């Protein structure tokens, strides 16, 4: 098992939006997708996913409908709304900018100053 990183506070919402943006998913599916694309590098407590999902639902970034899963079970599927996509783009850009800034700060060497 690869070494797992604690989630940076406040990033769960962004992860969920990204995961769902690739296609409708049910809650467990969201976890699997995040695990899959991060190479299981991020640790998310399973139950903690749901308060975040409902928060996004309430903000109108996601919409949900009941359907049948690949396991032939009833499950609630989430997909991105137009507003959710806009938010995802904004936050991705913001994240990239601050990550770049952080990276360059942390990469600074004495001779560059």
């Amino acid at each position: 098992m690869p070494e797992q990183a604690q989630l940076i506070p406040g990033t769960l919402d962004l992860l969920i939006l990204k995961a769902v943006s690739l296609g409708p998913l049910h809650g467990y599916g969201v976890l699997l997708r995040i695990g899959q694309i991060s190479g299981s590098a991020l640790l998310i407590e399973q139950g903690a996913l749901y308060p975040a999902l409902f928060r996004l639902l309430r903000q109108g970034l996601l919409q949900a409908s009941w359907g049948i899963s690949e396991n032939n079970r009833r499950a609630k599927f989430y997909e991105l709304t137009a507003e959710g996509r806009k938010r995802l783009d904004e936050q991705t850009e913001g994240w990239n900018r601050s990550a770049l800034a952080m990276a360059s700060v942390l990469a600074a060497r004495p001779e560059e100053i």
Partner: protein
Amino acid sequence: MRLFASLRSAANSLFRRSGTNNELDEELRSHIQHRADDLERTGLSRAEADRRACVEFGGYVRFKEESHGAMGTRFVEHLISDIQIGLRSLRKSPGFTLVAIATLALGIGANAVVFSILNAFILKPLNLPGAESLYMIERGKDNSPMQSYPDYVDLRDGNRSFDGLAAYQISPAGLDTGGNPTPAWLYEVSGNYFDVLGTKPYLGRFFHTSDEHGPNSSPYIVLSYNYWQSHFQANPAVAGSTVLVNKHPFTVLGVAQPGFYGSELFYAPQFWAPIVDQEQIEGWNGLNSRGNRSTWLVGRLKTGITVSQATTDLQSIATRLDKTYPKEDSQISFSLARPGLAGDMLGGPVRAFVTALMLLAGLILLAACANLGSLFAARTADRSREVALRLALGSSRNRILRQLLTEAVLVSLTGGAAGIACGVTLLRWLSTWQPVPNFPINLPVNADARVYLVSMLLAFASGLLFGLVPLRQVLRANPYQVVKSGSTSEIGRRFSFRDVLLVIQVAVCAILVTSSLVAVRGLMRSLHSNFGFQPQNAMVVDTDLDMAGYNGDRVAPMQRRMIDTLQSIPGTTAVGLTDRAPLSLGWNTSVVFDDNATDFSMSKAAAESMTYMVSPAYLQAAGTTLLSGRDFTWHDDRNAPRVAIVNREFARKLFHTETNAIGRYYRSLDGSRIQVVGLVEDGKYMTLTEDQQPAMFLPVLQSPTSATWLIVRSSRDPQQLASAMETSLHALDPGLPFTIRTWTKELNSALFASRVATVALGVLGGLGAMLAITGIFGMASYSVSKRLRELGIRIALGAQRREVLSAALGRSLRLLTIGSVVGVVLGIAATRVLAYIVYQATPRDPIVLAGVVLAMLLLGLLATWIPAARALSADPLILLREE
């Protein structure tokens, strides 16, 4: 969009809460099953996979709660559960709940009543279309609302600020609908009256300016809706029928809207008649005399004209009047006043009194809140164990506070509702109250939406206020400490917040008790003060001969016959006649001049004197003491030289002497010389609180009047006497309308204001006293129950009763003393204000002071009695076993 979505989600969650709950469960379970499916695929048994999936999921209930929170459903759910828990815990302590609700009901009830009075008389505009632009015109520096009719005509025709200016007078008349004539009260109004006030008839039509063609030209009346209901059986055919007003035929034009009573709040007229018919209605025409000021004016300002512009406009007319009529209108000036309470004449005192009352009611509510605050604090302290346990079990402080606050608001809303219910009942009674005999008083004080809203808001706010008191207690509570030691002890602190609350509360109550005692004493004194006449053992007959068609030379002989008839009733010691009884509604004043005066303009007058036209023996019948000189005789008639009897104040003002007044002369406005033949004691004439007024009595034969008040002095039983009087007067003229009552009853109108003040203050004082009792009781019993164990041990160790009592109650009693002293001092300061309203109210009255101290002592004793008994009966054995 987002807002809409969240609103929708909140609404959904509110209406389909259980639905959401099931859906959430299904979703979470579906998640766990999917995980279990995956685990099963790795080779685990289904049961093991299910178990592992559950564990991996984490705190199921916690996440479910958090999800609910994220969905925005938690608020409603918490509220409902808070209310349920609150109701349950309140039901568990019914004593506390009842005391709390009753306390608040008192506070809110008092405020609801006082606020509706404030609302009815001060806040709410008159119930007329466009009432904000209606103003009364007042005259002179003392803001008298009375104007003369010729001045009215000049103002009406000369101003550029009013859309219309109407005149009205209040007067009584005999109304005969074909049976017995009955006295009724009416408004004599100018033709434009209904148009200026902007009201429409309910039935038929009103009269207008076009109906006025000089004196007695317009024989029309308009009935009030209530009078039409009660005296015409709501007969729609009444319009066009003819009735007799003082024996003169008048046509009923129509009926006014229900609830339309003109522009005075306190007066509900029975009908309206044109003022140009004054001679027929009152028997004489005062409309041509510029010096006779008895007309009230109300006008509608033009849109865009401000009050100050209008005042300037009126002032230019005043200057003109001053120049043209220097005799009557010298230095006249006009100002505007809000209509409704006779301008500033009644408006000033009423506003002052109601404001003072509102302050006191606010104090009551404050005391109630302080009381409830300490009750709730004590209760929270008693529940400190429960609170500590809940904190220890992981409840958040937030939720505990919310729970306590919900309880407080529950109590406050219930108390508020109960208070409003009581208040509304009282108001219903008040609005039908007829305090002045034979005068249609209208007190429009029924509660409206504004009253309900304000009361409920007050209840809610006070709930939050006293609910916040235990806040600190909860925030500081250390669960481990509390659970360990059993209870929080506050030993070592000299004064806690609760102590301060109790002192405030006791002080407020002492203020209320002081004020009400001062008022009650004032009323008692005013009832026993020297009026300048003896109302005991006297009956009054009130009539106007004009109502029965007597006028001119027929009046005096009829009056003489009435006196003689009443005189012949067995047991009658004296019968006197006067045109107005002192201290009744209305009065006459006239200016008098020095004997040497040559300039008879108003500003040169020596005095403005109360004027009474009386018969011989009036003084004897009224019980007014003749100090020197002689009474009138029936020979003081038109052929005899003019004479007068004056009071001591008159003599002081005119002649600067009391002893040598007899035989001296003064002059009336028309210049005629009048000789003083008698001197009587000073008395009260307009109101009980007036400054001493000069008064003169003129022989009725020299100044005839159709207004007739007969004073009959007799020691006989009033009921028998009244029926004997009625029979003999009826025999004299069956068509004469009159009323008979005891003089004491007639005085009700003069004592009305101080009575109302006294009743109001008495009630508030009583409320204050009750709050003091519950507050001290709550505090004392709390401190006893807190220290019961300690007291038990003390008793077991052989403490004396006195020591136990001082340990248990010393603190409460000390606080009570501090509060009382503060309250009495403040109360004495406050009652100076009362002295303006309540006759002879003085706080520096030893009886009042002693009374307050005694009352507070009694209250303290009463309130600490039960806790003291409990402290003394503390049984150490039982107490020690309990823990």
